[in-house]
């Protein structure tokens, strides 16, 4: 179970939010490495992301026990003000650790609040080099950010496309040549 605790003194006033990743890694076999992930969230992203921060009804914590974090289950609110008072602007950090059969793993979460919205999130996963851990933590991190949903270009009314479909003629010809050689 995730048991976050505040790493810095400043916290939202009405904080009692659980940091609860939907999936936690179960194995831990490799040497420690870090998976730093920086998510620069901006207005549009913040709307959907802000729903991931929500107050809960746990008792007020002491300064040394966990209470500030991210609840990935609260998905529908587009504003942090689900409770009586607004959150103070600022940067908040929390570490969370959880036990697995192979030992303890942890992540550090730093969230910047501005105008009652999440302006920035940084998550550092201590993934122990286990690819499963990386994947689960990426999913957790992804869960509070925005994953793009592509639309068919054919169905869009556009004049042109900016991307990668048109590449160098000489390059393409050479690539075809290489492919032909590789098949021979």
């Amino acid at each position: 179970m995730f048991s976050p605790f505040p790493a810095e003194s400043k916290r939202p006033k009405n904080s009692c939010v659980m940091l609860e990743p939907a999936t936690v890694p179960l194995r831990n076999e490799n040497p420690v490495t870090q998976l730093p992930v920086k998510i620069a969230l901006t207005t549009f992203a913040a709307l959907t992301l802000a729903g991931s921060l929500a107050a809960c009804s746990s008792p007020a914590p002491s300064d040394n026990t966990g209470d500030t974090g991210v609840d990935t289950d609260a998905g529908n609110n587009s504003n942090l003000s689900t409770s009586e008072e607004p959150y103070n602007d600022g940067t908040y950090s929390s570490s969370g650790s959880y036990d697995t059969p192979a030992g303890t793993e942890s992540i550090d979460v730093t969230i910047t609040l501005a105008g009652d919205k999440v302006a920035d999130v940084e998550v550092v996963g201590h993934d122990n080099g286990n690819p499963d851990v990386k994947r689960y933590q990426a999913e957790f991190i992804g869960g509070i950010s925005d994953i793009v949903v592509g639309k068919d270009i054919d169905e869009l009314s556009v004049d042109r496309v900016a991307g990668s479909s048109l590449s160098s003629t000489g390059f393409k010809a050479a690539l075809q040549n290489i492919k032909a050689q590789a098949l021979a």
Partner: protein
Amino acid sequence: MLEFEAIGTRWGIETPEPLESRVITAIADRIESYDSAWSRFRDDSLVTHIARAPGTWRLPAEAGALLDVYRSLYEATDARVSPLVGHALERLGYDAAYSLRDSGHHTPAMPWGDAIAWDGATLTTYSPVLLDVGAAGKGQLVDLVAGVLRENGVHEYVVDASGDIVHAGPQPTRVALEHPLDASKAIGVVELANGALCASASNRRAWGAGLHHVIDALTGLPTSNVLATWVMAPSALVADGLATGLFFADAARFEGLGPFQWARMLSTGRVEHSDDFEGELFL
């Protein structure tokens, strides 16, 4: 609509009236003179000459703005974006002959100050350096071609060099932002008006697993954390340079290059974008 192939890519120029042949000739001349200076795919180009031996070289007029942007990118990315990656690209197989074979021998680009000195008019090279201006050169050429149009009295246009686009006129052009992993899909749409939009994707010119043209000058290897970038800026030179820069550093590092809007897709599938990004993203 004028369509042609130049500098190894497809161009389209849209204007309200068909272009006169003298304007088309002027455009062709401008592209040829740029290509003859900066193409490392030509035996007779200036950068190919420069690569043969150290020396002092007078560069064409556009070099000032181009190298200024490169210097800003170099500093903002802690030397990860550099015009000195030509040899690193060659070793990866992206050479003039398009051998597309990774030599397996990777070296970082030389630090700027160790390799070259630029005084605004002449370039001094301390060793045989192969300049590669792929991060911003195409954007600059799009600006220069737009300049030829304006000099010839054409003030409404879209110049589109396969992803590097500059627009002028009252009617915006709608641009789909191509999904870097699926060319049939878009991740958003932008209305571009009186400015430039440049896209960069690491799969744009890829020739093998993890082998593509967006090179980290510090390692000599392709970068992998960002899949694609889109930047809107007043000029295509800056937009193109930033589209490469955002593969290596966060947008906040590039404030020195002036106002710009951006979006990028990370290898995790997440999309980041600037607060002021004027476009629809399908998030």
